[in-house]
């Protein structure tokens, strides 16, 4: 009996402590939660880290301003960060958790398409606005009114590169080396091939070689590329592989130009690649070096805070968060009913015109894809990314 009494007392004590210690949160309705569905572990942890950095910078701005002002009221903003482990299934549970548990008003990410496609389905079903800063797969936003993206599509980038090389070098024979098991390089390689063959006729892509994610030795593919009489090599790869491929190509005697895609945009590329990458061109969303205006301000702040230049993921995440911020502000008034507010935010987002982000001006199409300009970047003799020219749709 005594023990039963003791147990009861403990429970009662816990109840009291629990009741008094936890601070009442009547202001819960006044907090806006923005979800972040990013890969902190798994294949591409750097992508997650950059997004997290950019998001925290954004949050500190909001905090400095005292919160987000919508229709005269000030709302506190909270970030809910979920790790999707670079896996499709985990991204789906993360998205579900963000929507139903964390009550996110809007979600940023997942970044990579293999997670963004299934997570987009979840967000669309729950009528929660989602913006993927980095996913280039058309399926992410296709027929999903609630899903947006922050970057240009591969179908735009492919022709940009093909046209640029034709004008710049007057080449007619191209070689491509891409990762077949990763959907971004694969998609872009396909669009580039289509665009190139449209310009120079069938068979003008003389080598179309591939490898699998995680490979580090590209000698057999490169040997085949060198054997073909291609005039340049197009490399739609990330900084994981670019340094290795470029260095190995040079070691195998390749002396012709190499052209890259927006995935080269990370400062890590040049850091890991060194002199081998000097003189190369690539397409990008933005240039950190020699940037002006808000882009420069962002780069400087990021550099000061995290000790490295921002990569494209950080910049795109930053822009995506600002798009969400702008959409929320444009709503005019939040009702306090999460479901209604989500629809309001979505509608406001779709209406955004000429949003001036650090990666360029953006307007969303019907599908939720932005119309924005691409930048051609040259890596100069000092290993810096310099603005070369701008291509707009």
């Amino acid at each position, binding site marked *: 009996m005594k023990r039963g009494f003791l147990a009861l007392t403990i429970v009662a004590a816990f109840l009291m402590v629990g009741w008094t210690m936890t601070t009442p949160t009547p202001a819960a309705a006044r907090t806006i939660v923005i979800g972040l569905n990013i890969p902190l572990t798994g294949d591409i942890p750097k992508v997650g880290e950059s997004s997290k950095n950019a998001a925290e910078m954004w949050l500190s701005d909001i905090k400095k301003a005292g919160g987000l002002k919508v229709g005269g009221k000030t709302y506190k903003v909270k970030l809910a960060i979920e790790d999707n482990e670079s896996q499709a299934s985990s991204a789906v549970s993360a998205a579900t958790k963000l929507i139903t548990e964390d009550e996110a008003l809007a979600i940023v990410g997942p970044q990579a398409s293999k997670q963004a496609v299934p997570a987009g389905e979840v967000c669309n079903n729950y009528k929660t606005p989602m913006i993927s800063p980095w996913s280039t797969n058309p399926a992410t936003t296709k027929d999903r009114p609630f899903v947006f993206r922050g970057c240009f599509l591969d179908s735009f980038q492919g022709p940009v590169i093909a046209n640029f090389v034709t004008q710049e070098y007057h080449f007619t024979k191209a070689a491509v080396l891409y990762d077949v098991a990763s959907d971004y390089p694969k998609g872009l390689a396909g669009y580039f091939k289509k665009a190139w063959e449209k310009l120079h006729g069938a068979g003008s892509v003389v080598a179309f070689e591939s490898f699998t994610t995680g490979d580090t030795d590209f000698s057999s593919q490169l040997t085949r590329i060198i054997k073909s009489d291609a005039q340049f090599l197009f490399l739609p790869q990330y900084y994981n592989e670019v340094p290795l491929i470029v260095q190995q190509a040079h*070691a195998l*005697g390749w002396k012709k130009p190499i052209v890259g895609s927006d995935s080269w945009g990370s400062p890590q590329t040049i*850091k890991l690649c060194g002199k081998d990458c000097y003189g190369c061109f690539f397409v990008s969303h933005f240039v950190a070096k020699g940037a002006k205006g808000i882009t420069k301000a962002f780069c400087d702040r990021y550099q000061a805070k995290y000790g490295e230049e921002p990569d494209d993921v950080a910049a795109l995440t930053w822009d995506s968060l600002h798009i969400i911020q702008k959409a929320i502000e444009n709503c005019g008034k939040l009702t306090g009913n999460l479901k209604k507010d989500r629809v309001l935010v979505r509608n406001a987002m779709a209406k955004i015109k000429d949003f001036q982000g650090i990666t360029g001006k953006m307007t969303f199409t019907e599908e939720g894809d932005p119309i924005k300009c691409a930048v051609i970047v040259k890596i100069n003799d000092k290993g810096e990314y310099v603005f070369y020219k701008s291509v707009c749709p």
Partner: protein
Amino acid sequence: MSLMTFLLQNVLNALQWGSFYAIIALGYAMVYSILMLFNFAHGDIFMAGSYIGFGIATGLLYLVTSGIIAMPHWLILVLTIILSMFVTSFLGILVERIGYRPLRNAPRASAAITGLMIGIILETANLALLGAKRRGFPALITQKVYTIGGAFVTNRKILVVVVSIGLMLLLDQFVRKTKWGMAMRAMSYDFVVVPLMGVSIDIIAPLTFAIGSALAAAGGVLYGISYPVLNPYMGIIIGWKAFVAAILGGRGSIMGAALAGFLLGFIEIFVATVFPSTLRDLIAFSIVLVILTFRPYGFFGKPYSAKLRL
């Protein structure tokens, strides 16, 4: 490019790529032949070895550039390889102590699972400690490109092949000529009776892990020199493929594992050369499947009954 040059170039490429499979496969094969266990943490020990080498090389380079000590770059390279082999061998002993010794009488598959888990811990710890940034291995030797009969070969490539083959021969001599090597071979023959003869498994097992890990570290440093982008997950795929090579070589034959490693390298490179490179994994592993269907005990293994000790 003529056909001969093309072939020669691919043979050179395959030699380099095969060296890595071979030197990692050796570690698997040592543990497998002597203790009859899969050490699934081995790929990640390779990763750790590479990072340790990266740390040592960066440290030494810093000392040299800041003028505290003076040494030429080739000496730094040698020191990096030796020191990282030394440090990583302790990691191997640690892995044995934590993940394998408590499970010596457990089913073999359980030990395989602990190995797998230790591997995940190594990856995650690396990610948590060093952050998600990729690391560039310092270029300890400046790359020089030579041409042999029209084919291109770099001094790094030569270094990789020579050092790894050298280490393999050294290991072979060790296992065949020394007393320790004899104890190991005896253990692989029968690890129930041999301990009764005064050969302690508590010494041989850590020694096996230490040697395997040291080889992996040497491989890791060489890998860092040839493919200078390090990331916490770099050991997974190469590790599993080397595991395939190790078993393909056959139990009880450590050199068989090395040869199978080279073979796997050749298969991968030549499949990618002859067929569309997209199909490389598909065809390479189909070949492995066919080989094992017709030679069920690997190349050099002898038939034995190795059911799991459940």
